[in-house]
């Protein structure tokens, strides 16, 4: 038997994935969640395709721990790979079971039946359908994985651009987000977070006036009120009456990267191959990325309700089962006492505070059994209290021969681990867990296994043919600033560094930077995206204009995911402006091509924002962010024009697209800036200050 996809091996019963209980509809249950990436639409397309149903006949159930298959976390651009491949097999096998039953009922050979819109038709016109047959077909059986899905040539739904099923509600402002849920008897809570890492509450009032509830557990403090506005105002009033003891626990921001490289760390060799020959000289450079915030437009929000010692939580988490595991530990109850239902939130771009706020809600709701309690974070907490994408330092070195040819390549990265996601250890990672009287120590962030794409070392191995290379990653074992997964993890900075360095090496060798890459990429799919992006951007034969430049960045996400090349055109005479980004990608079989283009485009724009503007500022004590004024992101007037071109490679496995364009975009912008001004800026963000530093260096 062929190996089942992991999601299916873990949840083998067909009936876990779908049922035909609703007339004329199939209900599909998946464990991955919608985070604005369009996953519900793409997976519904797969189900419609393999079951021979119309797209409109597919109902995607909201994932909940009591009904959905456990598929772990929705992250790493893996949903189409995990859920998609499982669902494809499940639906193909389900269709085959129903087809056999239909053949029996219609007394015809299965291969003579046609199936469309869920109706099985015999050659003589007699018919039956999924719903008429459902009672006779049991889905309470394990998938064999032996029924082959349709060949790509037979696809009618998959591969067609399908409008997103969730978008109309959002365009018309309907009740769709978790923020909009209004449960009967619901009350509202707000949490007063410690102002800095390790702060402890010295004095707080014992109670509040005006019917406001006050909940305190160690350094965890919150208020509860009947209305949201009352809760908000109570929190404001209370904040001014609190006294915290704080200490200087953060690294000196001026020496952040020295701290990273000298802090206690755990070293891992990521890759080592070839025997380095001794070179004529060595070229080395250090690249740096600051802490970055997820900075969702909608604040984190959760609703919790306790009843008879059991807890129900409504959450926009990326991993309902992982959140349940950590809540169980933090609250000291069994997992089976907790149910979590997913409700869509605003885009999260990685592990933001969605899980943390669920614990906040559960802690406050515990004081009011039977009442649903809703907590929404403040803008300040959204930007300053959620985990950040960690700062990184990357040292690159190449030993070169007399002509500048690379003999050996070395890459070293220093960073905190890139994941503090819940549900992976024996103590919780949820924010409030370390504030409780019976506190759980803050867990150090980890790097997920290399097989899952790694964390800090993601994309640290260069894609080029090089005679010898060595890649090492240092996971810093001290975490004064809480770090976790931000879209793309280490790939963003590693690709920025590698692709910047490649331009430097090409220049040292007197080679053309495009030719340098093409000559060292054996994989034709890699060359194809670079060729497409550069052709569409008009790379060759451009007239040089003062203050303007063009640059290229390429990576295959996680080394085994989507191929993506980006060309950036910048104008840097006064302001640094990215005028245009041309993205070319190969994502294997594209389920929903327009959805993929949308994600690649969004990723490129977000990466442009990170690259040009973003940096979490702090002093020795506090994160210095009170609101958007302290963490600017790219706005409409500056957002670059983006063109996305997809290569359709035929029936190649589908590769997630959500994170593929970020690293190449950063590198392309840095390389374009160098092309424009002759200045190599190696520290993000690429703003005027960094430019001035580079000019002095």
């Amino acid at each position, binding site marked *: 038997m062929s190996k089942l996809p992991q999601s299916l091996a873990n949840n083998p019963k067909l009936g876990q994935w779908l049922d035909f209980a609703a007339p004329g509809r199939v209900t599909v249950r998946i464990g991955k969640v919608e985070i604005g990436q369009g996953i519900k639409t793409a997976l519904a397309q797969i189900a419609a395709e393999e079951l021979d149903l119309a797209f409109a006949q597919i109902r995607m159930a909201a994932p909940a721990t009591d009904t959905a298959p456990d598929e772990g976390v929705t992250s790493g651009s893996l949903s189409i790979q995990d859920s998609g491949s499982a669902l494809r097999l499940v639906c193909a096998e389900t269709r085959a079971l129903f087809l056999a039953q239909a053949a029996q009922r219609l007394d015809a050979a299965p291969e003579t039946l046609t199936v469309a819109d869920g109706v099985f038709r015999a050659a003589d016109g007699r018919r039956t359908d999924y719903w008429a047959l459902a009672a006779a077909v049991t889905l309470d059986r394990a998938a064999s994985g032996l029924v082959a899905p349709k060949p790509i040539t037979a696809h009618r739904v998959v591969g067609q651009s399908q409008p997103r099923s969730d978008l109309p509600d959002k365009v018309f402002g309907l009740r769709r987000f978790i923020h909009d849920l209004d449960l009967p008897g619901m009350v509202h809570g707000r949490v007063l977070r410690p102002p800095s890492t390790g702060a402890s509450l010295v004095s707080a009032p014992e109670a509040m006036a005006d019917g406001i509830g006050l909940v305190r557990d160690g350094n965890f403090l919150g208020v509860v009120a009947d*209305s949201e506005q009352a809760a908000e105002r109570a929190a404001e009033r209370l904040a001014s009456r609190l006294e915290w003891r704080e200490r200087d626990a953060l690294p000196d921001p001026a020496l952040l990267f020295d701290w990273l490289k000298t802090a206690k760390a755990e070293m891992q060799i990521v890759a080592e191959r070839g025997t380095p020959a001794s070179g004529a000289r060595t070229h080395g450079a250090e690249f740096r990325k600051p802490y970055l915030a997820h900075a969702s*437009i909608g604040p984190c929000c959760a609703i919790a309700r306790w009843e008879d010692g059991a807890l129900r939580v409504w959450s926009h988490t990326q991993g309902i089962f992982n959140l349940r595991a950590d809540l169980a530990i933090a609250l000291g109850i069994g997992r089976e006492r907790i149910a979590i239902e997913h409700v869509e939130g605003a885009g999260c771009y990685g592990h933001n505070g969605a899980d943390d706020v669920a614990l906040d809600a559960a802690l406050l709701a515990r004081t009011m059994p039977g009442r649903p309690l809703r907590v929404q974070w403040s803008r300040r907490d959204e930007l300053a209290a959620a985990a950040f994408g960690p700062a990184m330092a990357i040292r690159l070195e190449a030993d070169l021969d007399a002509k500048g040819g690379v003999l050996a390549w070395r890459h070293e990265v220093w960073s905190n681990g890139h994941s503090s996601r819940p549900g992976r250890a024996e103590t919780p990672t949820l924010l409030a867990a370390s504030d409780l009287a019976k506190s759980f120590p803050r867990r150090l962030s980890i790097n997920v296994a290399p097989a899952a794409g790694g964390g800090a070392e993601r994309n640290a191995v260069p894609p080029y043919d090089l005679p010898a290379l060595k890649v090492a990653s240092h996971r810093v074992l001290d975490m004064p600033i809480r770090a976790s997964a931000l879209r793309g993890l280490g790939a963003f900075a590693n690709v920025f560094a590698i692709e910047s360095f490649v331009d430097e090496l090409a220049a040292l060798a007197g080679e053309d930077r495009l030719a340098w890459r093409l000559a060292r990429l054996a994989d034709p799919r890699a060359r194809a995206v670079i060729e497409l992006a550069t052709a569409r951007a008009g790379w060759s034969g451009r007239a040089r204009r003062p203050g303007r430049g063009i640059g290229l960045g390429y990576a295959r996400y996680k080394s085994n995911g989507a191929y993506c090349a980006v060309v950036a055109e910048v104008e840097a005479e006064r302001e640094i402006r990215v005028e245009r980004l041309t993205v070319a990608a190969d994502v294997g079989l594209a389920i929903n091509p327009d959805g993929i283009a949308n994600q690649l485009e969004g990723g490129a724009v977000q990466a442009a924002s990170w690259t040009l503007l973003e940096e979490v500022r702090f002093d020795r004590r506090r994160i210095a962010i009170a609101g958007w004024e302290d963490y600017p992101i790219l706005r409409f*007037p500056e957002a670059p024009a983006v063109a996305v071109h997809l290569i359709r490679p035929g029936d190649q496995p589908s590769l997630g697209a959500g994170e593929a364009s970020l690293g190449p975009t950063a590198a392309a912008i840095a390389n374009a800036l160098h092309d424009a001004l002759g200045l190599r800026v190696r520290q993000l963000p690429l703003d005027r200050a960094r430019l001035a530093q580079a000019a002095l260096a």
Partner: protein
Amino acid sequence: MIVNGRARTVAAPDEASLLHVLRGELGLVGTRHGCGSGQCGACFVLLDGEVKAACELTVGQARGRSVTTIEGLGSPERPHPIQAALLEEQAGQCGYCLSGIQIAAAALLARRPDPDEGQVRAALARNLCRCGAHGRIVRAVLRAAKAMRV
């Protein structure tokens, strides 16, 4: 106050936040809460035709005046041209920013039926979108402008 063309009596006191009242008492949740301090545009409404952050207005400031929210622009049955265009362009990812953006765009088109791209971008300068849907949104607004002119 007049909300989306209908007179509504509001029980909340004058000092209550208009955003809370819209989302709570009036059940108009399409106006989103993003920052609560006028910095992101998620809560934009039209107050007598002018773009305002509902999170920075009190009920008192809106009494006797006309408030238009996203629900007043159009509905699935009768979409506003901007809404039709957003769907045609598939402009949006998480969609959290879209309500406020449509309000700002509607105000622009009321004032300037034939904007160029730069004017659309300038009109949306106070609206944040974290998903990077800017390009598609700008195209949709230009498309809507064209549809409204014919």
